[in-house]
């Protein structure tokens, strides 16, 4: 018996060694994988909410867009948005029920202190027994410009994006309707669920950013892209084009007319400059056909438009929807559509972000800077750990062509459809757009894109369904004043 008992004892030890090995795996070697398993969401959330989440600041380093406060509930910290709904597109929401969006999601590692650059301080905190803190994210947004955009847009549904052409920094990012992220940050589940439901049931979709997430036909603002293609193809700003009342489209009985069925002023032939100034559909349709689908598509894609809605073209700190212009192959049997696309209708799609990028590329001598929403990240004690500097993304135009296009766009504002954007003493270059959509009977979308070399700012605005003017709306009347307000704010 003795021998067996001893062996039995050893067998028991072996059994326990097996257990020991397994718990070592679960709690040490495999622990991280297990902790990050998506099904472990609850614990991940609770862990996240025990962190003094870092702040999100505007570019003035003073205005606080999002901050963390100690709370007495089950979750140790509460997220607060002191500016309410003004910066919702940029910050996104942070909800223990619905997760995160916007910068809260994209920069989560920095805000929780998990990012590599912040680890030393995080570990120090851990050792010293302090609660975990996150780093600070400094955005590029200028509070003055943001306020001006919100005030000017008012209660019209639409979006405003302002980008600084020399750096690519996004200075304003606003959409209406918007929502208050504080509602989703509450720790009371029923409150959050109710707020979410209300926001999602709202037919105006306040959580959908018109500035970066939706797409609309750009209308005549797309003529800037067509112009770029024409200039690159060797046509100067003084090149002349036939100016009929109506253009017969090839391969079809359809025709293209000008706005209101009018003639474009200037005679039987007008220059490219004149055509852009008055936003002449007929001439630009001709230009589009002349340049051809291939070059037009290439130019659009060079500005950041994609061939389809899917896929990434330009990287941005938060998710956004790039503009759409089909591949050249699409137009093989669809010649008439080339003409219609050239004036920003048919399959063309864009949003203020996309058009602001076009504007900033033109303003920056043809070099398109990568858009940035975050300038720098600081560690828990306020020291800068990462500086996100300007980065070039592409060169859609040559500096000479960009200069020519700038001149054309200055003409639009000085004597053309964009006079509502004039600012005394400041050079403003812009383009209006009044986009048909749907069956064509709905109120059009009012667009305006512009930039000021003096102010180093590019702005794009869309007012959906004509805003306060409805079917009578034009880009010049409805959207241009909003862009002007933003430029004026930058001028102060």
């Amino acid at each position: 018996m003795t021998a067996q008992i001893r062996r039995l004892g050893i067998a028991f030890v072996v059994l326990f060694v097996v257990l020991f090995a397994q718990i070592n795996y679960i709690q040490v070697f495999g622990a991280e994988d297990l902790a990050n398993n998506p099904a472990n969401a609850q614990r991940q959330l609770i862990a996240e909410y025990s962190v003094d989440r870092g702040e999100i600041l505007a570019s003035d380093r003073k205005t606080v867009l999002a901050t963390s406060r100690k709370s007495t509930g089950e979750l140790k910290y509460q997220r607060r948005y002191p500016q309410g709904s003004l910066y919702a597109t940029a910050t996104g929401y942070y909800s223990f029920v619905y997760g995160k969006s916007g910068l809260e999601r994209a920069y989560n590692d920095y805000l929780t202190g998990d990012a590599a650059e912040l680890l030393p301080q995080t570990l120090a905190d851990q050792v010293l027994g302090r609660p975990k803190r996150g780093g600070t994210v400094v955005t590029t947004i200028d509070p003055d410009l943001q306020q001006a955009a919100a005030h000017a847009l008012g209660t019209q549904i639409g979006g405003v994006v302002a980008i600084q052409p020399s750096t690519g920094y996004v200075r304003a990012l606003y959409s209406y309707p918007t929502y208050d992220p504080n509602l989703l940050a509450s720790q009371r589940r029923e409150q959050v669920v109710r707020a979410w439901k209300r926001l999602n049931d709202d037919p105006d979709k306040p959580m959908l950013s018109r500035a970066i997430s939706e797409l609309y036909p750009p209308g005549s603002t797309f003529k800037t892209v067509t112009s770029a293609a024409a200039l690159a193809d060797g046509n100067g700003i003084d090149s002349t084009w036939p100016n009929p009342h109506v253009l017969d489209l090839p391969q079809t009985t359809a025709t293209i007319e000008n706005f209101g069925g009018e003639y474009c002023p200037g005679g039987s032939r007008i220059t490219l400059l004149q055509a852009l100034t008055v936003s002449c559909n007929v001439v630009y349709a001709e230009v589009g056909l002349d340049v051809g689908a291939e070059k037009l598509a290439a130019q659009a894609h060079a500005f950041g438009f994609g061939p389809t809605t899917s896929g990434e073209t330009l990287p941005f700190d938060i998710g956004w929807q790039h503009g759409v212009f089909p591949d050249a192959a699409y137009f093989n049997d669809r010649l008439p559509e080339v003409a219609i696309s050239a004036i920003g209708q048919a399959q063309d799609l864009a949003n203020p972000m996309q058009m602001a990028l076009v504007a900033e590329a033109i303003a920056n001598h043809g070099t398109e800077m990568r858009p940035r929403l975050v300038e720098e990240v600081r560690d828990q004690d306020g020291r800068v750990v990462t500086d996100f500097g300007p980065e070039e993304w592409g060169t859609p135009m040559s500096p000479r062509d960009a200069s020519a296009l700038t001149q054309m766009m200055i003409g639009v504002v000085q004597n053309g459809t964009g006079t509502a954007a004039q600012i005394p003493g400041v050079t403003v270059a812009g383009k209006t757009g009044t986009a048909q959509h749907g069956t064509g009977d709905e109120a059009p979308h009012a667009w305006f894109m512009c930039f000021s070399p003096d102010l180093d700012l590019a702005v794009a605005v869309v007012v959906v369904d004509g805003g306060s003017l409805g079917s009578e709306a034009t880009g010049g009347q409805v959207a241009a004043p909003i862009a002007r307000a933003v430029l004026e704010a930058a001028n102060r």
Partner: protein
Amino acid sequence: MSQTVAADPRPRQGTAVALTILALVLSVGAYLLVGLGKRGRVPVTLAVYGGIFAAGFIVVHLVIRRFAPRADPALFPVAGVLTGLGFAMIFRLSGGLAAEQATWIAVGLLCFVLTLVAIRDHRQLDAYTYTIGLLGLVLLLLPVVPGIGRTINGARLWVAIGPVTFQPSELGKVLIVVFLASYLNAKRELLSIATSGVGPLRIPPAKHLGPLIVAWATSLAVLFLEKDLGASLLYFAIFVVLLWVATGRAAYLVIGLVLFAAGAALGYAAFSHVQLRVDIWLHALDPQKIHALGYGQVAQAEFGMATGGLVGAGLGRGSPGLIPYASTDFIFAAIGEELGLFGTVAVLLLFVALVGKGIRAALDAGDGFGTLLATGLSAVLAIQAFVIVGGVTRVIPLTGVTLPFVSYGGSSLISNYLLLALLVRVSSGAAPGRGRSLLR
């Protein structure tokens, strides 16, 4: 084997006092830390629970000192720390459950004391071999009786009489071990002689093997009728182990293994819930299945332990409430979450120590019955702990056995303290004042 006259018991008493105090400090300390971690203040029930533990441990210590002075001084304290740790975890999970557990701990300690006092010499039990065996069998099969049997969580293990619900199999388990030890001790030589058989595997005559076959069949009956995988695994393993230890014939181990495999395969083929358990064991983290009933529980246990990491989230600081059945089956995982690897390894080491002491008691016992009894009881603790920890950590499929001393449950606590009392008794030899020779 002869036992020398015991050495001066006083050094052992000193150790016993120290260890008991340590156990008390650790137990009450853990419970105190839970209060601090959870609410930031000392728990209001400190006086009550602290008092129960203090009184209980002191009384037990004194009783051991008087009635089992030569017992290994670490036996009770180790079980005491496990009990205290379990209580602290249960208190962390639910104040209500803690109150019940405290009551059961008091009852368990009382049973311990009564057993130790009533049974002055473990050899007293040797005289009642068949009675005890029959009683154990009855207790095992009691839940099958219609009317009083209850199915909880898929296993028909419970009996409800009036307001009280208890698990008779817990007690039956101990009685079966006593029966086996007694029976095998008596028939040891007979069972060692092989008269018929196949090749190198020889087995003894059927009449001697008979009661064993009955006992083995009972374990299968438990599986099939009561749907308790863990218990049947336990009984079966105990039989085989004791049979092997008693006779020294490896053939029994081999046959046992074969029969176990056959039983397992049969169970798997016949029962969907067995298949489910096996699937959960293998695929608990499968993203398709992880939210299904059963899978989620095991997954949550692993997540909890992983969150605990090396040092744990801290008593009262983690989220063991996210683990289902955290107070019973998964209490080990809850400990893993709040006390980390340190905590889980500590628990394992405590069991190793307890089992080791039991084995030592078996080796030092002066008689065959005592040896087999201590071996069997130690094996129960070892195998049961392995089965539940292994199930929680997915070393083996999960079965519904409790972690001795740690899990919430009156039946479990009482039977484990009864088991401990017997171990202490064997470890100590006959109570002083008997005046009988220790040699058989």
